[in-house]
């Protein structure tokens, strides 16, 4: 077991489908809510503390060995937008394929049998971390970081934003990624004894609404 597995899993080029998704950034750009790096930073901070926190807690709980079926239901309950639920399952299925090739594991095989069309991505991420010999904190880090790195890289393409500015946003939010990860892991530990109700349910209504509007657009660069 090696900590470098975390670098493999968190690498933006890990082939799990993320490149086709903007994490809601395309909808926000189209609505005029992201016009430059300052807006992008606000957007990322908002997503980190809402969808990012929830995803990180789900991933941590899955890495601790909580029941994936219960976690998947908890993820559904925390995702009002049908479009976002569909996206989360598609990305979960894609991650599961990559994970089973990278870290063959009975837990991952079982997840594939239970969810042939995909479980929520953070749940798969947590089971993957476990298969890779990583811990709950690693899984939470991956989810929290993904919640900001996805939009940041997408906005480079959407707005022709200076890539150094986008990377600066990620560097400046790093401390908050640490704190969100801490909260997520604490909540996941509590959920092991108290049930999935103990997991955070932070909501970002504009992300949910934007996802529905985006899904109905006939032309778009990113799938979500």
């Amino acid at each position, binding site marked *: 077991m090696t900590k470098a597995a975390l670098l493999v899993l968190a690498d933006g080029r890990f082939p799990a489908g993320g*490149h086709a998704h903007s994490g809601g950034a395309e909808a926000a750009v189209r609505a005029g809510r992201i016009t430059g790096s300052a807006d992008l930073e606000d957007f990322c901070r908002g997503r980190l503390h809402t969808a990012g926190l929830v995803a990180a807690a789900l991933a941590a709980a899955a890495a601790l060995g909580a029941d994936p079926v219960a976690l998947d239901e908890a993820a559904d309950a925390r995702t009002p937008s049908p479009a976002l639920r569909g996206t989360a399952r598609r990305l979960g299925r894609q991650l599961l*394929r990559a994970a089973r*090739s990278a870290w063959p594991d009975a837990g991952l095989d079982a997840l594939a049998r239970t969810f042939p069309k995909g479980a929520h991505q953070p749940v798969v991420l947590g089971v993957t971390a476990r298969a890779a010999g990583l811990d709950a904190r690693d899984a939470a880090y991956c989810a929290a970081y993904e919640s900001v790195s996805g939009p940041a890289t997408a906005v480079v393409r959407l707005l022709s934003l200076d890539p150094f500015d986008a990377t600066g946003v990620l560097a400046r939010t790093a401390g908050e990624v640490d704190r969100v990860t801490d909260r997520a892991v604490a909540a996941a530990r509590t959920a092991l004894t108290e049930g999935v109700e103990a997991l955070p349910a932070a909501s970002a209504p504009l992300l949910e609404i934007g996802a529905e509007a985006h899904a109905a657009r006939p032309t*778009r660069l990113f799938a979500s």
Partner: protein
Amino acid sequence: MHLDHSDPHAPAAVGADARRPDGRRRALRIGLGGPVGSGKTATVAALCRELRDEFALAVVTNDIYTREDAEFLLREAVLPPERIAAVETGACPHTAIRDDISANLEAVEDLEDAVGPLDLVLVESGGDNLTATFSKGLVDAQVFVIDVAGGDDIPRKGGPGVTTADLLVVNKTDLAPYVGSDLARMAADAKAQRAELPVVLQSLRAGSGVRDVAAWVRGRLAAWTA
């Protein structure tokens, strides 16, 4: 965890596996790539018309920011709608066919689940540049489509698509006189770049149309099922 470990029908982890989870041989997958506007979708449509009565077919399209390629095939009614699937590529068509193939693999597998068994799945790339190639994890063979109007120096310039594709198609030969392209030179340059790999010069508007490409596909299918 209360997950069942006893079910032998676990989904395949690796896309290149030649057999489906139930043990049957999966469909042959042929990728079609090439620059924007070279005639990939028209070639796919013509292949569907030529081969659909002989083989069980389906098509996956990769559009860049619309669903126009899938909609063109639907409008042309080359296949029933349930046999055409569209993949979204997030502004990076070559990523979806080469670096991160998971969405395309799922589209192919879902088509086989929904309308299979299939003999052949055509995977059409979004229009890209001369370096775009398909991963071997996604397709069994690939066709690179260029056209005479894109410049008759493209075969000479080479690039991974032109030099390594299993079949190079030089399309729109009927336009050569109007754009000043030298077909003989294109054919000779392609031969020099590709050694023994085949090249087809075709016009879908004149002569034998897609027949040569269809014959090549039949050859690949015969080898796949042998």
